[in-house]
């Protein structure tokens, strides 16, 4: 160790000036052993009070409110929701798109930023993947019960049956079934594969027999040999590439559900892109909401540094600016098309009745509040980021509502006009899914490796065999 320190001093002389240096991935680094302790101690230690305070309401919501609303709806029918002619897609679809959206930023952070070799992603990648997996679970539930007769869901899968019927593959709604299921499976695999070496770390650190047994099974005999790493890295790159494709595919297909219809306000080619960017924007909001408290309470402030939060905020700003551009384009095209119905729908989003508050909320948040992220002072204030993240989620939820309901409630014929108000069961189910999401997330934070230990080690100076701390100059060059 002493050699390494003297080498570090030598290195400092050769290093570029301070303002040109990159922020270290981990602050206050004290070596690989320290890092291993730091990253696994939360899952091994005593459960803190804050965890219980958050977990109990989430668990109540997930295990009481959620099943009650779910079973009542399934046993009674879709009528318990506010959905009725002409608004047949209500909160169920709004929440479906919203949850899929939350998922997307997770995959973007973990997969796309891996392919572009952003080292800072190693610290938040695992948390982002977990967010993806759990929110896709919540998203997938909605279409399954939205069909009304959930026990016929298997009709959506190409299974030979006694009716001699097959799914109709020309419909994007059918593609959605494949897209969401694939997203769930692939993001879970990606999440699990990333954790295998870290399960090995937990297994090797285990002090009790039960822990040892559980993590031995999960690690599946991982030893970390060079041959294993060789194949592992290849598989990881392949999975990252495939997951990146999914970021751009799943929400595009959800967008296609809308734009292939004839409804004014939906029938636009911009929709697939619109939904992808909106999804990513919303997901970055959720990422901020999750990261700000967790980095503090789990003692990870040196790991998920201010510089990482700054980068997340910048990405959110970029996504927000693209969204703003799309809003402008949408309104412009509605006006420029000269289509009476298009103009009517878009005019009513902001100057109509019933839903104009939601329209202005989304403009206020997604267009105005997002601009605060230009300022470094805001980006380095964790409280501000938390609040902005929360607001982005609300803004995007309003946007989904305005798109879905705002286009349906006044369509072509005035005879078809109506209003939609969510009922208590709509709202209860949403609260239930939020509870289930946070319950799963808190369980993940407490019991699984929340930071990709091996990935973080790999980007440390100690991890590079040609860096002085990695040992190359120590008697090398034989």
């Amino acid at each position, binding site marked *: 160790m002493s050699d390494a320190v003297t080498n570090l001093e030598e290195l400092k002389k050769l290093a570029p000036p301070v303002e040109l240096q990159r922020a270290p991935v981990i602050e206050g680094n004290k070596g690989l052993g320290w890092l291993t302790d730091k990253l696994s101690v939360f899952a091994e230690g005593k459960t803190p009070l804050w965890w219980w305070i958050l977990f109990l309401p989430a668990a109540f919501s997930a295990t009481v409110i959620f099943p009650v609303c779910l079973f009542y709806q399934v046993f009674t029918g879709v009528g318990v929701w506010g959905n009725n002619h002409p608004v047949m897609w209500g909160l169920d679809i709004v929440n479906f798109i919203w949850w899929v959206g939350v998922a997307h930023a997770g995959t973007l952070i973990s997969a796309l930023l891996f392919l572009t070799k952003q080292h800072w992603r190693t610290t938040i990648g695992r948390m982002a993947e977990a967010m993806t997996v759990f929110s896709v679970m919540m998203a997938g539930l909605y279409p399954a019960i939205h069909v009304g007769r959930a026990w016929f869901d298997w009709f959506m899968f190409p299974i030979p049956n006694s009716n001699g019927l097959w799914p109709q593959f020309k419909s994007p709604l*059918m593609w959605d079934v494949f897209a969401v299921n694939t997203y769930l499976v692939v993001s879970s695999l990606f999440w699990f594969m990333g954790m295998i070496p870290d399960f090995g770390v937990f297994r090797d650190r285990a002090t009790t027999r039960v822990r040892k047994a559980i993590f031995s099974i999960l690690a599946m005999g991982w030893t970390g040999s060079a041959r294993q790493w060789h194949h592992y890295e290849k598989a990881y790159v392949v*999975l990252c590439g*495939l997951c990146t494709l999914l970021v751009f595919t799943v929400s595009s297909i959800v967008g296609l559900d809308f734009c292939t219809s004839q409804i004014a306000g939906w029938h636009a080619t911009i929709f697939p892109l619109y939904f992808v960017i909106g999804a990513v924007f919303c997901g970055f909001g959720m990422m901020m909401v999750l990261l700000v408290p967790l980095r503090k309470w789990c003692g990870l402030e040196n790991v998920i540094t201010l510089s990482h939060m700054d980068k997340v905020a910048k990405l959110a700003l970029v996504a927000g600016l693209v969204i703003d551009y799309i809003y402008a384009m949408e309104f412009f095209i509605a006006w420029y098309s000269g289509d009476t119905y298009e103009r009517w729908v878009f005019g009513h989003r902001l100057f109509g009745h019933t839903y104009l508050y939601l329209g202005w909320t989304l403009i206020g948040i997604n267009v105005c509040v997002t601009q605060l992220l230009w300022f470094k002072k805001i980006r380095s204030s964790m409280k501000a980021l938390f609040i902005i993240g929360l607001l982005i989620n609300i803004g995007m939820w309003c946007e989904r509502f305005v798109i879905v309901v705002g286009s349906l409630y006044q369509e072509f014929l005035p005879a078809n006009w109506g209003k939609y108000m969510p009922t208590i069961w709509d709202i209860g189910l949403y609260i239930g899914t939020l509870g289930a999401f946070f319950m799963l997330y808190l369980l993940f934070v407490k019991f699984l490796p929340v930071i990709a230990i091996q990935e973080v080690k790999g980007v440390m100076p*100690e991890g590079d065999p040609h860096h002085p701390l990695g*040992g*190359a100059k120590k008697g090398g060059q*034989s």
Partner: protein
Amino acid sequence: MSKNEAPKIYGLMAEFNTPGDLLRAAEKVRAEGYNRWDVFTPFPIHGMDKLMGLKNSLVGWVALAGGAFMFLNIAGLIWFANAFDYPLMVGGKPMFSAPMTFVPSYIMLIMGGALGALIGMLGINQLPRLHHPLLAKKRFALASRDKFIMVIGAEDEKFCATETKQLLESLGGANVDIVEEIA
């Protein structure tokens, strides 16, 4: 260290403190003519696969095979379901055409590729396995922490419990120890 009635030897393990040390030791071990050896590290070490002469991993091909298999299967299924077994006319569109087939097939290509990558990785690495001789060694647990461990297998033609041990020690390996084969 004489080992007569003792259990069969799996190999010799030695610890190194930095990836650089390990890389240099690996170079020497390779130059000595050993070919049944492996290193165990907390994270992948760049340059090690080249040094060990590992060829491009087959995992990519397994993933490609999985993806292609799924793609063709779903495309075939769509043809069978919507054009052959129960021809379904929707909006005057052709019974079977690329735009309707591509999206679901492509989505399932991703599924097949991902399954192929994971299963391929586990299969080629011969995982899951319940036990490994190295996992019985107490100090081996440090290989997932901050030590870089090299193991020279007893199967190697050049392996000799004493000479190999001397070699590992001369390379700077600490705590050189014999790993027993599990019965």
